[in-house]
């Protein structure tokens, strides 16, 4: 693969895209896992398909609109919409998310149907195609990463407080509602950043598996973020290499590899606990 990286610019771009993706999903995925927002993140990522469809449709009329820009705007609005509807109405959270998840995808399908002509790279938005990432995609990913890192650095202690004990945050007078909505917007940005890498359907895996793996090895939120970035990078680079050597689809290979790492980590953690327990309890 080293040869391929040296020779083919598309491999270099794929590598950079994978590393940029690992950063965002390590940081935001950590919040998704500790604040138990996996289902709403699944909703946000699937609803982004509506934006892809809208972007496709509008690109016939407005030349600078691309499906990814469509996804960016649409996903931010659907994340805010889900957050507000869940908090302001009496509908149960999972019902609202389930509805918006499906409605978002349906909007995407309708608009793609309305767009004349063949839509060749539709499959790549659903399942990812890291090997076709362009320079402009990379620039957008880097900008989104920078926004995510900046906001998390600025609001780290507030996010930690509302993740751990939202009710206490409210009693302190923190704007917990607004902070939660900002967090949902950061999830939306991460989703858009990950679309090209693993695709809409597999995004939720990259938002949960590396942080879940990291959690087994630390009790500190910052370290959990750094570790899950590391696990994410290993999965992306290793998956890319495996898919290149074995001629497998890259997005799915990355996810499967991260699941294998998670399984190995779980086993390792269990064995370590058992060993410690057997040392602590003396034999009769």
């Amino acid at each position, binding site marked *: 693969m080293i040869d391929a990286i040296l020779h083919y610019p598309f491999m270099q771009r794929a590598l950079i895209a994978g590393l940029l993706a690992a950063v965002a999903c390590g940081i935001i995925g950590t919040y998704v896992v500790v604040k138990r927002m996996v289902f709403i993140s699944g909703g946000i990522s699937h609803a982004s398909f509506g934006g892809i469809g809208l972007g496709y449709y509008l690109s016939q009329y407005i030349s600078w609109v691309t499906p990814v820009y469509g996804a960016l705007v649409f996903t931010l609005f659907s994340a805010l919409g889900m957050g507000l509807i869940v908090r302001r109405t009496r509908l149960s959270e999972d019902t609202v998310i389930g509805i918006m998840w499906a409605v978002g995808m349906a909007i995407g399908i309708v608009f793609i149907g309305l767009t004349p002509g063949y839509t060749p790279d539709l499959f790549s938005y659903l399942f990812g195609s890291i090997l076709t990432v362009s320079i402009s995609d990379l620039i957008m990913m880097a900008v989104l990463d920078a926004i995510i890192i900046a906001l998390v650095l600025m609001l780290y202690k507030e996010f930690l407080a509302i993740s751990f004990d939202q009710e206490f945050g409210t009693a302190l007078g923190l704007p917990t509602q607004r902070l939660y909505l900002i967090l949902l917007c950061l999830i939306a940005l991460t989703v858009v950043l990950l679309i090209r890498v693993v695709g809409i359907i597999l995004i939720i895996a990259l938002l949960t598996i590396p942080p879940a793996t990291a*959690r087994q090895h630390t009790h*500190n*939120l910052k370290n959990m973020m750094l570790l899950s970035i590391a696990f994410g990078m290993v999965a992306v680079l290793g998956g890319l290499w495996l898919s290149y050597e074995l001629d497998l689809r890259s997005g799915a290979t990355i996810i499967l590899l991260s699941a294998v790492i998670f399984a190995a980590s779980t086993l390792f953690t269990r064995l370590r606990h058992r060993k410690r327990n057997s040392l602590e309890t003396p034999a009769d």
Partner: protein
Amino acid sequence: MSEEVVKLNNVWVQYDGTPVLEDISLSIRKDDFLGLIGPNGGGKTTLLKLMLGLITPSRGEVTILGESPQKGRKHIGYVPQHSLFDRDFPINVMEVVLTGRLNHTRPFNWYSKVDRKAALEALESVDMLELKNRQIGMLSGGQQQRVFVARALVGEPKLLLLDEPMSNVDAPMQAEFYELLERLKQRMPIVLVSHDISAVSVYVSKIACLNRKLYYHESKELTPEDLEAAYQCPIQMIAHGVPHRVLKEHTHE
């Protein structure tokens, strides 16, 4: 009469047209240690949330140190009813206590040296300094409760509200926890919500009973009529630490 810290003036609270609190008037003074008892669903937590400005009354007025609850709540240290937090949450004792400084810090800034010093002092005052780097889920229920008290103290409050702090504390640790409150009451007035009348009455200086209406005489005395009205059944209670039956056995007719 010492300074008035909390004042409720003919306060009513309704949820969907159903009154939860009816015509509550209450004043809490600087050296009070008030035990607030009453049956479940009687509105005890609602009363605390009124003081914290989390609920607005449908009628009446609440003031904290002469200000509105929204302004005054920065002077309140709050220990919520045991929150069902995730025991695996990646946060340590020190970080939990620091979150109590968030109304003293500005967003976009990290915690300052002053914040850290305040957190260490708060941990010291609840005897939890040694465990400051321990993950919160590794502590016993009683130790966790001490950490939550430290989190309430770290903002240098002028009033401490505790909502059912004993619910997750083992019986042997409860006495120790009450001793901690005994020490804290030298520094600030305390409102202690509980459904365990007998335990509370030994330590507090005043008792109020709440079941939609408030039964309170600015003293440690409650009349049998009060309790019967609040609980709608006879109660065995302790006054001045001496147990005695104040009500006749209930007789069904």
